[in-house]
């Protein structure tokens, strides 16, 4: 059946079974391959997108549950203030290696920063422990989130 969803500000229509995960609609129907498949069970976070700003595992989010929520993917996260800061910090600190999980990492980190401009280590653990990185870029992910947080704080930028 047909579903209308709003992805990165654009209304799109798709005709698939109602239980089809959003991940496959994005990747295989819309051709938006920045969102990655890792496990299919919300265990690794590679497929993370935002629904109305909330980090969401698209591999277990059925298309019929999206409704009117605004879907934001890695392709458009750079248009948000938090996403922009996270991407910059990721590049400044050379976080990526193979890069496959990084779409999901960046989506989780952007959502964290958007709601919590100065996350503590524990906040970072909470927000990011659902995202696996097999290249083990965790040390730099943590540093990059902290650096991005500093970008958002004029008081810290002074130093």
């Amino acid at each position, binding site marked *: 059946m047909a579903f209308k969803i709003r992805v990165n500000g654009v209304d799109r229509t798709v005709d698939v079974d109602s239980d*089809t995960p959003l991940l496959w609609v994005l990747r295989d129907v819309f051709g938006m391959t920045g969102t990655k*498949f*890792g496990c299919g*069970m919300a265990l690794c976070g590679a497929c993370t997108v935002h629904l109305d700003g909330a980090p969401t595992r698209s591999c277990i989010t059925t298309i019929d549950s999206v409704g009117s929520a605004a879907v934001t993917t890695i*392709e458009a996260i750079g248009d948000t203030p938090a996403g922009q800061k996270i991407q910059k910090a990721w590049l400044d600190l050379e976080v990526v290696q193979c*890069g496959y999980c990084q779409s999901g990492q960046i989506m989780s980190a952007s959502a964290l920063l958007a709601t919590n401009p100065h996350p503590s280590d524990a906040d970072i653990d909470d927000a990011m422990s659902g*995202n696996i990185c097999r*290249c083990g870029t*965790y040390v730099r992910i943590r540093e990059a989130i902290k650096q991005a947080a500093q970008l958002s704080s004029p008081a810290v930028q002074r130093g």
Partner: protein
Amino acid sequence: MSYDRFAQDLDGVVSRRAFIKTGAAAGGGLLLSLSLPGLGRAAAIGDVGDWAPNAFVRIGRDGQIVLTMPYVEMGQGTYTSIPMLIAEELEVDLKQVQLEHAPPNEKLYGNPLLGVQATGNSNAIRGAWQPLRQAGATARTMLVSAAAKRWNVDPASCRAQSGEVLHAPTGRSAKYGELAADASHMPVPESVVLKRPEDFKLIGTPAKRLDAPFKVNGTAVYGIDVRPPGVKIATLAQSPVFGGRVKNVDDAAAKAVNGVRQIVRLDDAVAVVADHMGAAKKGLAALVIEWDDGPHAKLNTEDIARELDQATLNSGPVAQNVGDIDRAMASAVIKVEATYQVPFLAHATMEPMNCTVDVRKDGCEVWVGSQALARVQAAAAKTAGLPLDKVVVHDHLIGGGFGRRLEIDGVIRAVQIAQHVDGPVKVVWTREEDIQHDMYRPYWFDRMSAGLDEKGMPVAWNHRFAGSSVIARWLPPAFNNGLDPDTTEGAIDLVYALPNMRVEYLRVEPPGIPTAFWRSVGPSHNVFVTESFMDELAAAAKQDPVAYRRALLDKAPRAKAVLELAAEKAGWGQPLPKRVGRGVAVQFVFATYMAQVAEVEVSRDGTVRVRRVVCAVDCGTVVNPDTVRAQIQSAIIFGVTAALYGEITLKDGRVEQTNFDSYQILRIDEAPAIEVHIVQSSEPPGGMGEAGTSAIVPAVTNAVFAATGKRLRKLPIDTTALKQPA
């Protein structure tokens, strides 16, 4: 132009657009090809007609500088460090170069240290260090000659800089693009002088990764992302027991799934072809498959372990023999014996296995991220029954390799499926299928014994182990007299002065489970065993583990230096709370010296937390120091995962682990703080991608011993054995 895009629709260093532009501007450019040691290809220069993809450097008339990458990028930073080598001598800035994948061609792009076109064994920089700097220097020399001729001046009065040749006395300059056509007619210099290390501008400086921008905005294209027009998506179920067969399939329900197009039945697998992966997975779940499990239906891991254990009761091919081990053992004051075991491990790359194939009557196209492109081409050709030149392989970025993508089992499977499908089909393994049909790091069983003298120092070292040889299957010519260089690396040629030593290896191939390379392979096992056992000897001698090792390193100054550096930076010897301990490991593998000190906390329930790791490394000349740090951080996390969680087990022939819940990977909240200290050196570069993985495992288990007094001789760590008695 068959090997193409790394990124879609973005400006930047590695785009399809850039490649096409260069191709179109090809007339009159400079082609430089060079010979790799032992591959017998003379340097040749030609014009556009000669532009076969056997070049590392290509300069177009429009000034485009294209570097062809003989090694694939899977996160290790080779697409930055290899260009650094060429650009250093070519005298161009990294931002001026474009990159393209080398096409399949064993002769031209063979790895000089392996003899085949493959990216592995941490040897890209080692192999490229001389030839690719020479490639840059030769091109630069010819560009300078062309400019000097044009200006009628002495080449020695010209210099190259940032993609231009300059003649300071007259203030003239010409860009490489303007000189390329002329340069192609200049004689190839017999030899070139490479820069002295003190003149390096790029090598040794932290260069920005050239692939990073595409990896933070979703535009990087991995194999799993390709979408040739009309592509269908397939997923598959392979025989849950290795060697089993499909007995019967009821596909009525699967065919009824909306979006499912076709069911492909093979001898030992069934695939569901659909419009999208959602439908394919739903169709797969609806299949009712009856399997004939075959000869391994009753196989359990314990059977394999027992067979290996038994094998080590007999002597085997001697990998190294020093002194007289039997006499030394007879005279020893203290004798220490132990057995060790390491499990099968899956690669669990974040990008699940996948391969896209279009089989047509007259040819075949393959899209895949592979560590061994020429093997992909050969496998596809053989499976499809086509000549090699009818198979076009498009290489892509790799979402994690770690040895998994040195194998072509996935390519063969995808071609088998594609032969039944009209048009291109992308075969994507589910995570469960990826973990349960991996090719695994071998299980190894080790029997150790040592003799100590009256001072507690080792006078005899006896190491015998059994398990699979991956090399024997993957690179048979390198398996000789029952031995191969990978399986024994880290067990022989130890850094320590051991006057009497014998190492024996017995090749025992386990039935019913395929084995393969895995990050740090031989050393991933041997360093765990040798550095754990060295720790046991220190304990038996009642000596400090660092001091004990240090006393054996007088003849290995680089090893001693990294040990001392790591110990100092880690605060070795400073007091720690109860159930917190430090462990050390020293190694020389992949031509790199490394020492690590791990600080580990063992909670009352036995849970092990690695709090901090200090690594000192001497990898010779450092090309990109930031990559060295990144690779060590990465390798340590990879090794901690293995130490704490990594284990693939068989029950009734089936792999028991399925997804990241039962095959756990370390997460950010468990990741240790990591410090990397690099020793300055002008020695030739050593390997960096894997060394950190082998060193961390014994550092962690030795730290657990320091914290609890429990010696861990089997991986992964059994936390129940570490519970604090009530």
